[in-house]
């Protein structure tokens, strides 16, 4: 009987841990499958070697930026749309300005739509999840360089990269 109790109690404790294990599992799952629009952070430029460029295929990338209501910043892309050829390296910039009279730290999250396309969106330089501190009324230009993977499926010819800046609560 002690054995039964011990085993079942242990199972309960393990399942409590399993709830927390679901978080890395979920994130890994989303990264692998590209569900939820999560792209796999930053990648090295070496990826260019593996690309087969088809100059005739042009797709449109839209840029979107928004600021959470708690953060008194201005934040926008410097260009709203870009025509790109999959397999080539491109660069764009985002502009941010602190509108308040005090120093604020923010942090950006991003997503790619359509979700499955996020698997093919490789950023070689970005400001995802890095903490960005702006002094009162300070402006900053933040570059994003990216390569759309040439293996991108035929049915996708429009993608949106969206950033949202949140205030980092200390």
């Amino acid at each position, binding site marked *: *009987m002690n054995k039964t109790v011990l085993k079942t109690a242990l199972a309960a404790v393990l399942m409590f841990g399993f709830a927390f294990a679901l978080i890395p599992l979920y994130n890994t799952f989303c990264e692998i499958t590209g569900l939820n629009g999560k792209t796999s952070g930053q990648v090295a430029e070496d990826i260019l070697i593996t690309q087969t460029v088809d100059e005739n295929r042009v797709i449109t990338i839209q840029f979107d930026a928004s600021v959470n209501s708690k953060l008194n910043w201005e934040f926008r892309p410097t260009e709203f749309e870009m025509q790109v050829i999959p397999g080539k390296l491109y660069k764009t910039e985002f502009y941010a300005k602190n509108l308040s009279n005090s120093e604020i730290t923010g942090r950006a999250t991003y997503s790619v739509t359509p979700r499955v396309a996020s698997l093919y969106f490789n950023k070689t330089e970005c400001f995802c999840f890095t903490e960005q501190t702006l002094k009162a009324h300070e402006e900053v230009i933040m570059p994003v360089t990216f390569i759309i993977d040439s293996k991108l499926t035929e049915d996708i010819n429009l993608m949106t990269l969206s950033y949202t800046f949140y205030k980092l609560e200390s």
Partner: protein
Amino acid sequence: MSHAAVATHDHDHDHKPKGFVKRWLMTTNHKDIGTLYLIFALTMFIFGGALAMIIRLELFQPGLQFVQPDFFNQLTTMHALIMVFGAVMPAFVGFANWMIPIMIGAPDMALPRMNNWSFWILPFAFTMLASTFFMDGGAPAAGWTLYPPLVLQGGQNLAYAVFAIHMLGISSIMGAINVIATIMNMRAPNMGYLKMPLFVWTWLITAFLLIAVMPVFAGAVTMLLTDHYFGTSFFNAAGGGDPVLFQHIFWFFGHPEVYIMILPSFGIFSEIIPTFARKPLFGYVSMVYASAAIAFLSFIVWAHHMFSVGMPFGGELYFMYATMLISIPTGVKVFNWVSTMWKGAMTFETPMLWAIAFVILFTIGGFSGLMMAIAPVDFQYHDTYFIVAHFHYVLVSGSVFAIIAGVYYWIPKWTGNMYSERLGKIHFWWSAISINVLFFPQHFLGLAGMPRRIPDYSTQFAEFNMWSSIGGFAFGLAQIFFIIIVIRTIKGKGTTKATDRVWEGAKGLEWFIPSPAPHHTFQDGEAVKDEQLAHVSTH
């Protein structure tokens, strides 16, 4: 206790502890703890029901008459939390405590002291939960599913709700461990696994479900707590978290949870139907396997609760087909109940009436569930009154009917008094008609697009809502009548003495001990006889 009781049952020398504190507060007796659980569940049923009455009162007419929207949301949230965790689950644990040791010929539960703890945690947990009504900002109002970010914006009640959930989770897990330890180790000689009554089987499976998912729920609410108070970002997009992740974790718990609430009721009806059909249960072994199959499938279908969050087609297809698969073992069960009744020498005592109503109404609830399993149409039904109608058909005419039927079925054994068959039948017809007036129109409301969890609605929904409210008041009143019947039976007013067997030709160990059941039973560890058992498997 009274000398009269001793005189009428001179074989019943049961050494009950004297005084309230020793008898109830410090009890380790499975029957007393079972009684405590059942009384607690009934109290919570009335409390949760009262909240529902206010909800139906507000929805009687369009416009805001009695309560403000914020309080209305508190009502729907607390109604669900209290009914699920305070009424239905404790009631089934009460049945488990009372009946499992008797049904398997064990002297008591395996861990009687822990059993006392499992119960006495509950009143404190629910006092804490209910106290949030009196706090600034009121009770939790984000729905019983506690989705972030809404639930994190509701004030300090979150901490109370989370701790209450932790406590009742601990209580459930201890109860489940106790049930498993009892069933696996304390069966009387000759009580093989495939001779156990189905109520014992379904509870064994339920206990495993509880151990697997209650800790996951505890983990999920702990994450809500740390997100709110300690600056973590499990579900906070700003910190790289994901609110949709909460829904996945919640429903990984939530879907098995709905089977935790229905499997024991399958068990109760699988005891009642053979007794009144005077035939052994049709397909006993298939019932056991079907219960296990339902339990297994419950772990792999959770995302059908969240088709509309945005999921890839592959995911929607998988969860749709997996969900539909559940209707196969459930269909096996319904088939077996009907086949048990087929050509049986049926009589229609009150427990049997509830059982037949259950088979019909639960099947309606099952079919509306099947409709919502279809991913493309779920987008229309999602978060409408259609889902409200669905889960009330399975939870009220499934679980609650099982609890009521179980009380009628076993109360003669518990109290030694036969309840009034006439009052029981009035209670049944009153409830069976009013529940359909209450919930059936909600199907139409949902299909016409009335969203759930709103205090006010467009005027085209007025008529059905009025019917639903009238049905609701009638159903609520019927349950007050039920309490009167129970109290009269306990006190022996207008009742007759129950025989030991109670029901003609009833099988199962509980019918071979005296009525009322002595304080201690099956102390001698004698082997059980096959002819006493309802299900002697030929396997």
